[in-house]
């Protein structure tokens, strides 16, 4: 049986999503997307520059890649809505990764504004992927609002520190019926594998690949790690054994 996730009729079999910011060139971005056979990517509308292919991230994408336009630069919900509508008007599609960042020092998302934007955009017919700080109640509300996936951060954006929010993400995976995609903070393929073993539907990676010495090679490694983690999740992981020499609490039973 093929393990595909269908979003809006689009079959996603590669569960590594790759962002397009921070690369040393548009061509290098494209090579990384190709090397990891990426099906879903995200592009900031701020970097879309029609008519200048050398600078336009959108023009450099492989043909079969689906794009979530992200609302990078939005400080509040109104700005995020404006970016989403501009993207649709510009013909950049209706998949929107909602980023509402009112804090320039840590780049932490505003969950409340993100929820409001998600509700509005879903009503307007967009396919919405909200980026958020991991929180069960907010994640549930975003899922109820019709988000295509809920995307909690694994660690502060650009930190490459791995799945620091593991406990919170694990709870979200167990409790929220919508797909959970860890976005931001993953630094190594093993971080991505860990997310997939937990049951995440996908991971979104950007900085770790973009600033690596060989982005296409590392993107390919991430893809293998994501596939391995997904396969492990589907197979089911064995219980972790604990070395116990005896049964100190129940050893008295049957002694007489």
């Amino acid at each position, binding site marked *: 049986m093929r393990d595909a996730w269908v979003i809006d009729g689009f079959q996603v079999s590669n569960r590594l999503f790759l962002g397009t910011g921070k690369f*040393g060139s548009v061509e290098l971005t494209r090579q990384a997307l190709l090397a990891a056979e990426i099906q879903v990517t995200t592009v*900031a509308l701020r970097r879309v520059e029609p008519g200048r292919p050398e600078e336009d991230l959108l023009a450099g994408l492989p043909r079969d890649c689906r794009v979530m336009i992200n609302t990078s630069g939005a400080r509040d919900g109104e700005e995020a809505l404006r970016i989403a509508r501009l993207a649709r008007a510009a013909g950049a599609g209706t998949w929107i990764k909602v980023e509402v960042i009112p804090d320039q020092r840590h780049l932490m998302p505003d969950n409340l504004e993100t929820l409001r934007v998600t509700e509005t955009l879903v009503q307007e017919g967009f396919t919405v992927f909200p980026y958020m700080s991991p929180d069960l109640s907010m994640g549930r509300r975003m899922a109820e609002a019709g988000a295509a996936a809920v995307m909690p951060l694994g660690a502060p954006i650009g930190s490459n520190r791995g799945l620091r929010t593991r406990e919170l993400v694990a709870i979200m995976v167990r409790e929220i019926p919508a797909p959970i995609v860890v976005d931001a903070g993953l630094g190594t393929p093993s971080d991505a594998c860990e997310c997939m073993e937990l049951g995440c539907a996908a991971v979104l990676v950007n900085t770790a690949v973009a600033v690596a010495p060989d982005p296409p090679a590392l993107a390919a490694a991430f893809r293998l790690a994501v596939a391995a983690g997904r396969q492990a999740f589907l197979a089911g992981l064995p219980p972790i054994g604990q070395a116990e020499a005896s049964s100190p609490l129940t050893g008295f039973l049957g002694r007489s």
Partner: protein
Amino acid sequence: MRPLAECLEEARTRPWPEPPPGRVERALAGEGGSEDDLRALLSEASVPHLEAMARAAQAITHRHFGRTIQLYSPLYISDACENACLYCGYSARNATPRRTLSLDEVDRESAALAATGIRHVLVLSGESLSACPEDHLAGAVRRMAPHFRSIGLEVQPLGEEGYAALLEAGADSLTVYQETYDPRLYAKVHPAGPKRDFLFRLETPSRGARAGLRQVNLGALLGLGDWRRDTLCLALHARWLQDRHPGLEVGVSLPRLRPHAGRTRPLAPVTDRDLVQILTALRLFLPRLGIALSTREAPDLRDNLVGLGITRMSAGVSARVGGHAEPGSAVPQFEISDPRSVPEIQAMLRAKGYDPVLADWPFPPS
């Protein structure tokens, strides 16, 4: 809460002993450290650690900004000025002809600049409200808006309402250099004109932030006074703004004093080594700080500083009023050292493995 001027003056005048052994290494190990960490990194004791500072600065910059450099260019709309700054070619005491572009000329100049690919522009003027009043500035910003993605202001300091009006016209950022944070030296090098008001200038970025501008850029004119203390105050000023305006993007520029039509010699020279120490110490102290490098610096040095913490560079610069549509037409504010065109700067950055980003903003100015 203590006023900004009081906080900065206290920091500027506090004794600054050489750090004890091991202190620089400790400051280097962290990211986003304390004021004492910054003092250690700016001290003489850090000079032997410059390579380690550069490596750390590069790694932090790559993680936060990637391998990208945003390109921008200034557009001079007026060289009329009522100030008499001792270090500047626009000083009212220099008997040179002055010119303020009409709105049609602004349009032509914008079209010429935009044709080079530049999308982020900085409107520049001298400080003369009579030659270039606020409504002329607003008119200029409106005429520039269709040509660009982002319009910054480097004009005379305005009140909060003035910035609100220019925001409405389409501007989104503000650049204002304090020049020096030493009030006595400031008074000495600014003998006449509205710029004499040290406190009004110091509070300018706060007024811009309150008006809703999304980015402010600060600067000290390196070479005017004690660069260690001016850099310390510059960094603390930036952090003060970040603390009070979490949504504000705060940046700095690192202008070094250049020869100009009046005086030519810096009062307190800043060497290339000093500049590297300033740049890398700022990056370690404020990891998400935007840092701009202007064409005052020579091509070779600019190329070498790219990987050490710079996030923005000017390109295709003319420091003359009307210099894009009519090259060679007026006296420049200062002699630029890097005359390279936008394609030449792009080629240099690409050769170094950096993406020269021309458009990096989602909204058209409106």
